[in-house]
């Protein structure tokens, strides 16, 4: 199974003074894949993602994201990716329609296209009655769904999601994962970071990072098999030593 590579990370290193936050990362992510990026607090996940999304430059090595170099073309990367974090994704004091228009503008979409996408999105989410409602008065579940739709409004090649379903109720959570599946079936790569291992179970492949390195990378079922575990949570804890450190398999 040789798929198109949309993220290619080669010998990626990031140092802050004497501290190596990202230590020689080397991996690939494919088109349309749901890729889970896991690791303990302080493992270097955030630093790596900031580089992959063009917000921070590597110290050495490079990452090619949707055809652009994180080292030389970070501004280009920002235009072709989508990003959604669990909170603060939408402006609370703007309406649903205003938020969509704002993000469309940020991604340099034409007015015509924004208009088209807005009505399309409102119908698809069954959101027409909320078009002129302030975000602050929407229930959390609806906000999350809207935030995700806005993150893929400009048809990015990749969308980065940070703990996308943390704290939502089980029904909304499932509706949300269906949206993620639908997005990935359209060929958009979904890059998920999370602390919650049950969220990781939904991913096609997952990587586990520790002390700046990737110590495990495979499908959830292969990892479970390899570590003789019944869940990804167990895999995560199993490869962790009592002192909280993870050792390489």
């Amino acid at each position, binding site marked *: 199974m040789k798929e198109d590579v949309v993220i290619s990370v080669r010998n990626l290193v990031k140092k802050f003074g004497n501290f190596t936050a990202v230590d020689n990362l080397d991996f690939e992510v494919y088109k349309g894949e749901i890729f889970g990026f896991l690791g303990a607090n302080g493992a270097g996940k955030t630093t790596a993602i900031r580089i992959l999304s063009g917000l921070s430059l590597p110290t050495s090595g490079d990452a090619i994201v949707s055809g652009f170099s994180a080292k030389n073309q970070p501004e280009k990367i920002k235009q072709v990716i989508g990003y959604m974090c669990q909170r603060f994704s939408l402006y609370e004091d703007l309406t649903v329609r205003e938020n969509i228009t704002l993000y469309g503008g940020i991604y340099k979409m034409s007015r015509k296209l924004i208009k088209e996408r807005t009505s399309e999105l409102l119908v698809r989410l069954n959101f027409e009655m909320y078009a002129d409602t302030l975000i602050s008065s929407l229930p959390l579940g609806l906000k999350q769904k809207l935030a995700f739709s806005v993150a893929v409004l400009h048809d990015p090649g990749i969308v980065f999601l940070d703990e996308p379903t943390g*704290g939502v*109720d*089980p029904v909304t959570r*499932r509706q949300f994962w*269906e949206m993620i*599946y639908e997005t990935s079936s359209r060929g958009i790569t979904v890059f998920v970071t999370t602390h919650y291992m*049950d969220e990781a179970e*939904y991913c096609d492949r997952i990587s586990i990072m520790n002390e700046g390195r990737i110590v495990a990378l495979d499908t*959830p079922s292969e990892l479970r098999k390899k570590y003789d575990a019944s869940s990804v949570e167990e895999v995560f804890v199993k490869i962790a030593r009592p002192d909280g450190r993870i050792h390489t398999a």
Partner: protein
Amino acid sequence: MTATSNRGCREKQYSDRNAMLKAIESSGITKTFGNNKVLNDISFSVNEAEIFGFIGPDGAGKTTLFRIITTLLLPDEGKITIFGTDSLKGFRELRRKIGYMPGRFSLYQDLTVEENLNFYATVFGTTISENYDLISDIYSHIEPFRKRLAGQLSGGMKQKLALSCALIHKPGLLVLDEPTTGVDAVSRSEFWDMLKNLRKHNITILVSTPYMDEAMRCDRIALIQNGSLLSVDSPQKIKEGFGKRLYRIMAPDKYRLLISLRKCESVATAFPFGDSVHITFRDDEYDKSLLNHLRSEGIENIAIEETAAGIEDRFLELMETKAGNATE
């Protein structure tokens, strides 16, 4: 037998309901903010020295309920008794018996670790050394950093300091609002181990979390959604309450599998669960034509097996029963 005797047998006592003193008894708690009813007729009781969990999504009312229990907020209606004392009349007395760790880190960032702990001990008229045995398990992890400012600690260390501060006056009731949110899996697991250790000091622990998988670490749990309790019982009993036979079905293309299952008339519910889809049948009977139906839709490499329901399955089921129409 009283709950205070024979600490070694603590575990055994949980099952013996009649012998137990109630740490908390709540009846008919209701709270409204403007037009928004955030708590609706909340009644439950918590046994002494048990770990009692409130499991529910953001906005379910967990924090509001905890503020009422900790006497920081007044309910519109209803009554709470803590260790036999009415929370309205006896709030001064109760505050000495309650340790509260809010969801947001709220210690003094510009004081050191040790200064924070000293401050909380002094406020409650005690000293660190007096109750050191209670916190040693937790505090020993951060003691090497006692001269460091609290604002400069890592997330895991802040959590341990906050827990130490909530415990320093030896409270009978410890109330923890989402203590594990934003904490990685290894630290979360350690945190739950610490809570379990605290039981031997005869401390009743009330804890909230939006994460269903943490329910199994509690002695009893209450599922809460939109300000109402859906169910209160031991995690095992809650799981067993799932009414139908549950099957998990897998195929490489999860999204198409899900869409096809939705089209199938004999399928009552189909929800994605990690790498599989959990389904129930309308007549609660396995539909033998299902596999053929899926194959005709072009889905291959299908695996299906009966499975035991988890807390999240039961939560979904309860949400549906409660709402009739489960989607918000």
